[in-house]
């Protein structure tokens, strides 16, 4: 299990001023009721991508070998609504710092926003809308490149994998709903 024992010496609760989720792979085993063999990280960007993420993660329904944890990249300007979304669905949430500081067996992301390159996990990237239909309008000095954004979200500071001309299908393949 990639996640366990590879912690970057992050003390539980040291980030974001709160205790890490007890199901996090680096937390003590005795806190677990079920002992999953793998930990999957669901990467939430905003409510749009989160709804699709939950659709995809139904592939793990019924499998106690897999624990899913969620994190928010904090990179979308459309964050309002995420907190309610997470709370209403009781998603086991860890902070982005915690997510970056540990290894996971798999990360699933339905958006290319955020510092995904900082994650230590094989990432499966999926569109959150019907395929890829939007053009990429690059502007010099750009911050975040929201997949699917017509002319990019104004959110700054985040980079998207595939930014620039090597974006999958750059100039023609963009994800959005």
């Amino acid at each position: 299990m990639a996640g366990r024992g590879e912690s970057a010496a992050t003390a539980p609760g040291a980030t974001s001023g709160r205790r890490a989720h007890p199901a996090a792979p680096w937390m003590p085993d005795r806190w677990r009721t079920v002992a999953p063999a793998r930990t999957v990280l669901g990467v939430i960007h905003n409510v749009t991508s989160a709804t699709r993420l939950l659709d995809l993660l139904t592939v793990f329904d019924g499998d106690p070998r897999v624990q899913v944890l969620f994190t928010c990249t904090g990179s979308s300007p459309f964050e309002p609504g995420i907190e309610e979304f997470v709370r209403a669905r009781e998603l086991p949430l860890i902070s982005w710092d915690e997510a970056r500081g540990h290894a996971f067996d798999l990360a699933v992301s339905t958006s290319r926003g955020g510092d995904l390159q900082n994650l230590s996990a094989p990432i499966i990237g999926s569109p959150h809308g019907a395929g890829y239909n939007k053009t990429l309008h690059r502007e010099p000095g750009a911050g975040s490149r929201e997949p699917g954004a017509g002319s990019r979200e104004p959110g700054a500071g985040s980079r998207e994998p595939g930014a620039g001309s090597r974006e999958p299908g750059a100039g023609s393949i963009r994800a959005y709903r």
Partner: protein
Amino acid sequence: MHDSELIPAAIVLSHDEQRARLRQGCPQAVPLSHVVGDPCMDQIQASLPFRSEYRAALGVRPGQRLLLLTSTWGRRSLLGGAADVVGRALAELPRDEFRVVAAIHPNAWYGHGGWQIRSWLEPYVRAGLILPEPATDTWKAALCAADAFLGDHGSLTLYAAGRGLPGLLASFDEESVAAGSPMARLGALLPRVHPSAPLAGQLAAALRDQPDSPGLADASRLVTSRPGQALARLRRLCYRTLDLAEPTRPVVPHPVHLPPPVASGRQSPLDQAVFADARVAARDPAGRATVLLRRYPAEPQARGRRTHMRDPQVVVDEGEPDPRWANVADVVVSRGSRSEELFARHAGCWMVVEPTSHAACRLRLRDGAGHIARWTTRPWWATPAVAASALGACLAHFGDDWEGEVAVHAGDELPLGVLLVHQSAPHGPAAHTTDPDVQIEY
């Protein structure tokens, strides 16, 4: 890619054509790409057999049509750049015949705040708009339940086309849509909402023409090239990445959950003011008088855009707070006040309706003449207010002493209503204690 280093271990695609575009734009990524299909399209297809359940949960009544308005986010979205179409849909489509539901992109919803979106759309919600929260799956249920859509360049337009729903584009941001993409194809194929032609006619044309369009049929197949397989293929990919044996149980798309029941009736105790457009048509084969009736919510009607109505009468409930309708009401439905009081309060009113049971009502004219009307065939839409509008058309056509049976058509697909009318003595005793017919509850 990030700084020349490919970040993802796998890139999931929904259609083979995307791989061709990926090969052009980013050949290095092609080996990482997996065409799995589209789990959302699969779920919508798996939900379609339950269309009638979704319609019922959304409050769509027998014979009604459901129009889905879909908006992505941004200034060029339906909501951002063509929001007048929301008002037009509610103003121009007869309210007994149509329900309208809006599926708003979460970035638009949460970007302004759900409260704000509801506040902005409140006049339309009062006029009957169904406005579900976008974080739920209600939009998928609505997509299954709908008869037609008005959309933009958002994904829901593709899903609508993918499930064979006829529709029109209210806005379309050509600039942000990639040339050669399925969305660009749809943009070239779908008609645009005409700014002045009646919307009902435009929808009827779409419903008539689009099911046979080979171009749209082709475009609808661009949503997924692995129909029904997305979750199974995605699971295989995930478990391979996890180095874990895949469960033996099959993974199949399940139907979308039923939306939380939206009250099919109104939330306000007040029945919204309507413009009722009624006219007497040729007698039916049974020799009955026939009335064609279309009712439109008053609130969204715009001045100078009333060609969808011929000669409407304003019908209000007693207690209507909006002076625009209260002051010009032709017909007032009593909530207990005597007709004399209501005639005094509403100067333009010529008919007061006093409901006496679910199926019957007493109708008073300003000159004191009275009629008793009873629905002998009472479909869900047949209320005392509708009886008043039908009777008004009959009296205008046949004269104030008319009585008899009238077949009422409130919409092409709506069940027929039959109303039995006879004159009652002017200023007779209260309806509650008179004619035993009137007391019949249905």
